[in-house]
C-alpha cells in the first residue's frame, strides 16, 4: 500500500484549476486520433513507420551511389547528383532512420519496461515527433525544388558550406533541417530522462532497470549534452549564410577548423547515440533466447555509462590529419583506444550470457548473434585508425567507409532489425514468419559482407571516399563491382524483411502473450498492450521482474488483486487528454522554417528594407507556433479516469470525463 501511494496515476483529490480549453480532441480511431495522440505507444509507432519509410528512401539513394561506382568512369550520375546522393544518404540513414528507430523503441518499450502508464510529459513527446517530421521534410524538400537537395556532405565541412561555395538554398535546408532534428531529439531525450528517473513502478530500483532502459537513459544524456554543439555550429553557419557574419569567413578572421571541432564534439557522442540503444536491445534478446540472466548486469550497465562519458573526450580522432600537434594527437589516440575497453567488456558479457545457455535460434536471435560478430569487426577497424599514424593512411579512404558501415549496419541496424522481430508480437499481437525472417537474415548478412568487406581493401589500396568516379587503371575495378553486387543482395534482403513484416502486420498468425518466454516487464502485458498499459501498477521484486513473476505467480496474483481494489477506490487509472497543440506548434515550425531556409530573400527594389515574403512567411510560422504554445500551456496537463473490469476492458461507455 505504501508503495502504491507513490505511483503517479492515482487521482489527486481535487483539481482547483479551471483550464482554458478551446477544443479537446477525443477521437479514438481514424486520422484525427493519430494526429492528436499523446499515447507513447502510438508515438513510438509513428517514429517507427517514418523511420522505415526513410530506410527505403536512404536505401535507394545508396543503390544509386553503388550503381554509379560499379564501373570506372561511369556516367549514371553527374558529379553534382552524386554529391546530393551521398550527402542525403548519410544524413537520412543517421538522423531519419537509425535515430528515430531507436526513438520508436524508447517510446514504445521503455515505459512498459519500468511499469509506467506513459512518459512524464505526453504532449511534449508528441511535439518531439512532429518536430522530427518537420525536420525530415525540410531536409528533403530540396528534391522538389530547383535548388536541389543538400550536397555538402553529412559533416557539412566549412568553407564548402559557406555562401561562397554553396550559394543555393540547398545547404540552408540542410542547416535548418538538422537544427530541427536537434530540437526534436533534445525534447524527447529530456522527457525520457525524467520518465526513467521519476516514473519507475514501486520496487523498480535503478539497478533493476532492464538494460535497454539503462541504455535509453545514457543515450538521452548523450543527446542533451552533445546536440547543443552541432546546434551552435549550425547557428553559426546559418548566421554566416543569412546575415554575412564571419564565423567561418577566412578573409575576416574566421577559422573553418572551428566547425570541425564543434561538429565532432557532437559527432562522436552521436555515434554512441546510434550504438548504445542497439547494445541495449542485444542485452535483452540474448538472455531471452539463451534462457539465462544477462551475465554481469552491473558491468554491462557500468560500461555503457563509461562509454557515454569517454565518448565526449575523443572527438579529435576524426581530425588526426588536420595537424593538431603531437601532444593533442597522442592524447586523443590514447583516449580513443581507452574507449574500446568498455566496448570490449560488453562483448565478453554477451559471450558470457551465451555460454552454457540453452540457445533457441529464432529470427531475433539470429540478428542478435550477427550483431555481436559484425560489430566486433567494426570495432577492430576502429581501433586500427585510433592509432594516429595508421589513420594518416586510412583517413578519407574507403577503409573508413568500411569501418563505419560495419558499426552502423552490422551494429546498429542489425540490432534494430532484431528488436523489431523481437517486439513485433508485443506491438501488434501477430508473429512474423520464421522462414522469411531467417531468409531475410541470411540474405542481409551475405549482402552486407559482400558489399562492405571489399571496401577495407579498396581503402588500403588508396581509393578515396566521397569520390564520384575513378579511372579504370587504379586496380579498384573488381572491388567496386563486387561491392555493387553486394549492395543489391543487401537491398533484396531488406526488401524480404520489410515485406514479411508488412505481411505479418495484416495477415500474420495471432501470437500468444509472451511468445518468447521472456524476462522483462513489458512481456507481462497482453498483446497489443491496452491504452492504459498496466491494469494494476506492478510491484517489482527482482531484476528480470517478469521472470520472477512467472516463478511466483500465486503470490503476485494476490498482491495485484489487493492493489487493484485500492487503485479503483482511489479513483481509477489516470489518462492524459489528447491534444491538438503539439502538431499545431509543429505546423508553425514548418512554415517558419520554410521561410528561413527555402524562400528567397526579398528583392530590395520591390520591398522596403528587409521586408518581403521571406520575413512574412517566417513571422507567420513563428506566430502560429507561439499561439499554439500559449494555448498548450493554458490547456494544462489534465486528464480523465477510467475504471476497468476484471478482464481489462474499460467500464462504462469510455467517455472521457474530466475528473
Amino acid at each position, binding site marked *: 500500500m505504501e508503495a502504491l501511494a507513490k505511483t503517479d496515476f492515482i487521482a489527486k483529490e481535487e483539481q482547483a484549476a479551471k*483550464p482554458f480549453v478551446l477544443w479537446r480532441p477525443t477521437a479514438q480511431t481514424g486520422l484525427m486520433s493519430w494526429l492528436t495522440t499523446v499515447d507513447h505507444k502510438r508515438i513510438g509507432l509513428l517514429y517507427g513507420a517514418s523511420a522505415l519509410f526513410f530506410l527505403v528512401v536512404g536505401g535507394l539513394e545508396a543503390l544509386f551511389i553503388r550503381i554509379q561506382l560499379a564501373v570506372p568512369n561511369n556516367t549514371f550520375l553527374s558529379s553534382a547528383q552524386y554529391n546530393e546522393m551521398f550527402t542525403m544518404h548519410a544524413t537520412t540513414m543517421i538522423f531519419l532512420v537509425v535515430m528515430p528507430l531507436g526513438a520508436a523503441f524508447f517510446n514504445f518499450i521503455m515505459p512498459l519496461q519500468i511499469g509506467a502508464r506513459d512518459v512524464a*510529459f505526453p504532449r511534449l513527446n508528441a511535439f518531439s515527433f512532429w518536430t522530427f517530421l518537420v525536420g525530415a521534410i525540410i531536409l528533403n524538400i530540396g528534391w522538389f525544388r530547383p535548388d536541389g537537395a543538400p550536397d555538402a556532405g553529412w559533416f557539412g565541412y566549412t568553407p564548402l558550406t559557406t555562401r561562397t561555395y554553396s550559394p543555393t538554398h540547398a545547404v540552408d535546408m540542410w542547416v535548418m533541417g538538422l537544427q530541427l532534428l536537434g530540437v526534436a531529439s533534445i525534447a524527447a531525450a529530456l522527457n525520457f530522462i525524467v520518465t526513467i528517473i521519476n516514473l519507475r513502478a514501486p520496487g523498480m530500483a535503478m539497478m533493476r532497470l532492464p538494460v535497454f532502459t539503462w541504455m535509453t537513459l545514457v543515450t538521452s544524456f548523450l543527446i542533451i549534452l552533445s546536440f*547543443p554543439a552541432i546546434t*551552435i555550429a549550425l547557428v553559426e553557419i546559418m*548566421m554566416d549564410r543569412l546575415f554575412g557574419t564571419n564565423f567561418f569567413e577566412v578573409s*575576416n578572421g574566421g577559422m573553418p577548423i572551428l566547425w570541425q571541432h564543434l561538429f565532432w564534439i557532437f559527432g562522436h557522442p552521436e555515434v554512441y547515440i546510434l550504438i548504445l540503444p542497439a547494445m541495449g536491445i542485444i542485452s535483452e534478446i540474448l538472455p531471452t533466447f539463451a534462457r539465462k540472466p544477462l551475465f554481469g548486469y552491473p558491468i554491462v550497465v557500468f560500461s555503457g555509462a563509461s562509454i557515454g562519458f569517454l565518448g565526449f573526450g575523443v572527438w579529435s580522432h576524426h581530425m588526426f590529419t588536420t595537424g593538431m600537434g603531437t601532444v593533442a594527437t597522442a592524447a586523443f589516440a590514447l583516449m580513443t583506444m581507452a574507449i574500446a575497453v568498455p566496448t570490449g567488456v560488453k562483448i565478453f558479457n554477451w559471450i558470457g550470457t551465451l555460454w552454457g545457455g540453452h540457445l533457441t535460434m529464432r529470427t531475433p536471435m539470429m540478428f542478435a548473434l550477427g550483431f555481436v560478430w559484425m560489430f566486433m569487426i567494426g570495432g577492430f577497424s576502429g581501433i586500427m585508425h585510433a592509432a594516429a599514424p595508421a589513420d594518416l593512411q586510412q583517413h578519407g579512404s574507403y577503409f573508413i567507409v568500411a569501418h563505419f558501415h560495419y558499426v552502423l549496419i552490422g551494429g546498429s541496424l542489425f540490432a534494430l532489425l532484431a528488436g523489431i522481430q523481437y517486439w513485433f508480437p508485443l506491438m501488434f499481437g501477430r508473429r512474423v514468419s520464421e522462414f522469411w525472417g531467417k531468409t531475410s537474415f541470411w540474405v542481409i548478412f551475405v549482402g552486407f559482407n559482400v558489399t562492405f568487406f571489399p571496401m577495407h581493401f579498396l581503402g588500403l589500396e588508396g581509393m578515396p571516399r566521397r569520390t564520384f568516379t575513378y579511372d579504370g587503371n587504379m586496380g579498384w575495378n573488381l572491388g567496386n563491382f563486387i561491392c555493387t553486387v553486394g549492395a543489391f543482395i543487401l537491398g533484396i534482403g531488406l526488401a524480404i524483411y520489410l515485406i514479411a513484416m508488412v505481411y505479418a502486420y495484416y495477415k500474420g498468425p495471432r501470437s500468444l502473450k509472451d511468445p518468447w518466454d521472456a524476462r522483462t516487464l513489458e512481456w507481462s502485458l497482453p498483446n497489443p498492450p491496452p491504452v492504459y498499459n498496466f491494469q494494476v501498477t506492478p510491484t517489482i521484486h527482482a531484476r528480470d521482474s517478469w521472470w520472477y513473476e512467472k516463478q511466483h505467480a500465486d503470490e503476485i496474483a494476490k498482491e495485484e488483486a489487493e492493489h487493484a481494489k485500492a487503485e479503483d477506490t482511489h479513483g481509477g487509472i489516470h489518462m492524459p487528454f489528447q491534444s491538438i497543440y503539439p502538431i499545431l506548434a509543429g505546423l508553425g515550425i514548418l512554415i517558419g522554417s520554410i521561410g528561413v531556409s527555402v524562400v528567397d530573400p526579398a528583392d530590395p527594389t520591390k520591398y522596403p528594407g528587409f521586408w518581403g515574403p521571406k520575413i512574412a512567411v517566417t513571422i507567420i510560422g513563428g506566430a502560429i507556433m507561439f499561439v499554439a504554445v500559449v494555448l498548450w500551456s493554458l490547456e494544462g496537463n489534465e486528464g480523465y479516469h477510467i475504471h476497468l473490469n476484471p478482464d481489462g476492458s474499460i467500464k462504462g461507455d469510455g467517455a472521457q470525463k474530466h475528473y
Partner: protein
Amino acid sequence: MSSQAAAATLDHHHDPTTSTGIPNKKLLMWAFLASDCMFFGCLISTHLIYRLHPPPGTPIARQVFSIELTSFSTFILLMSSLMMALAVNAIQKGNLKSMRWSLLTTIFFGCIFLGCQVFEFNTFVHEKHLTITNSILGTTFFTLTGTHGLHVLIGVIWLSGMLLYSFTGNLTQKDAIDVESMGLYWHFVDIVWIVIFTAVYLLEYI
C-alpha cells in the same frame, strides 16, 4: 520548516507521486539547463578562441565596451534574481499578492537589462562602428550576447505570462512548482550572464 500552518501540509521539496520525490517539472528544468549549459559553452568558447586570433584591423574591445553601463545592468540582473527568489518563496507560502509584486519587479529589472542591451548595441553599431559583419569580434560578441538577450526576453515573456495567469485565480500554492521551475530558468540565465560578463567584458580589462 515553515511557520505557517498551511505550508506544513504542503511539502514543496518532496513530491510523493514520483520515484525520487523530485517533481517532474523540476527535473525537466534541471536537465534542460544542463543542455543549455552546453549551448552557451560552445558560444563562449567560440568567442574566446577567436579572441586569441584577431586578424589585423580588429577593433580593440576595450575601446568599444562601456564597462560602467554593463556593470550596472549586471547588478540589475542580479537583483532580479533576488526578486525571483522572493516570488517563489511567496507562492510556496500561498501569498499571491506578495508573489505578484515580486514578479512584477523581476520583470521590471529584466526589462531594464534588455533596455541597457539595446542601448549598448545601438551605440556600438552607430558610434563605435562595431557591427556583426565587419569584424570577427563583432560577429562573436553580438551573437553571444544576443543569444543571452534572447534568453532574457523569453524569460520576461514567461514571467509576464505567469503574472497575468495569476489573476485568473488558477495559480495556487499547489502550483508553486510552475513558478519554481520558471525561477530556475531565470537564475540560470543570470548565472550565465555572470560568466559572459567575466569572459567577454572583464577579461578585456586585465
